[in-house]
């Protein structure tokens, strides 16, 4: 646990979160840049083909995660938690490395389909380099926000349950809604 529960937050905690955020952003930038480079292979494809592939890919990801392909085909993810050994070299460096592994999106569990659709978007839409970097920064920030919420909400103990509920994210509608939102936004990049 990056942040010990039930105590007043300090500058120390802020630095831990900053290191974690730096890690998530670095990891996400690495993934976004890698996929953007690979997107060069889609250069010869026309826009209609890209849109069809994006829609087909989204359906495929959905089937693999929630549909008839569950247990048949596995989406790329590391089915393990990030090992606690990352913290052996100090809390700040450990927070950074922990965040880095979370930010790459493939170094731990990925329970949502939204990150896969995001990668498909970068791969098939082939946005500008600046947009791809923005995608990396946004994903890194999105990955770090729950930890920031946890830090700020635990200043007042009565809010800790709310933050925990948000971070657990048990809403069954969350996965399809976020996936559709990413797909919806992807069409802005297409046109």
């Amino acid at each position, binding site marked *: 646990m990056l942040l010990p529960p039930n105590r007043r937050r300090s500058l120390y905690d802020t630095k831990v979160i900053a290191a974690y955020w730096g890690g998530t952003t670095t990891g996400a930038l690495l993934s976004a840049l890698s996929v953007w480079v690979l997107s060069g292979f889609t250069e010869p494809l026309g826009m209609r083909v890209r849109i069809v592939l994006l829609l087909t890919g989204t359906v495929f990801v959905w089937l693999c995660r929630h549909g008839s392909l569950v247990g048949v085909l596995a989406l790329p993810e590391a089915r393990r938690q990030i090992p606690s050994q990352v913290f052996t070299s100090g809390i700040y460096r450990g927070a950074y490395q922990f965040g880095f592994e979370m930010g790459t999106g493939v170094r731990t569990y990925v329970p*949502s389909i*939204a990150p896969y659709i995001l990668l498909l978007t970068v791969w098939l839409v082939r946005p500008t380099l600046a947009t791809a970097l*923005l995608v990396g920064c946004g*994903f890194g920030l999105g*990955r770090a926000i729950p930890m920031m919420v946890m830090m700020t909400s635990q200043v007042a103990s009565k809010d800790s349950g709310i933050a925990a509920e948000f971070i657990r994210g048990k*809403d069954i509608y*969350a996965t399809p809604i*976020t996936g559709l939102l990413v797909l919806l*936004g992807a069409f*802005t990049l297409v046109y």
Partner: protein
Amino acid sequence: MNYRTGWLWLLPVGLIIVGLLTKAEALAALGISLVAGLSLAGSI
């Protein structure tokens, strides 16, 4: 997600909607990446 922390989703969803309406690629890209990052909030 719940009503007390649901406001966190307003920013990325707002960015996507504004990006769609104004065809601002950067806003939409930031919005969808934030949504994707937030969607993994349960896997800490």
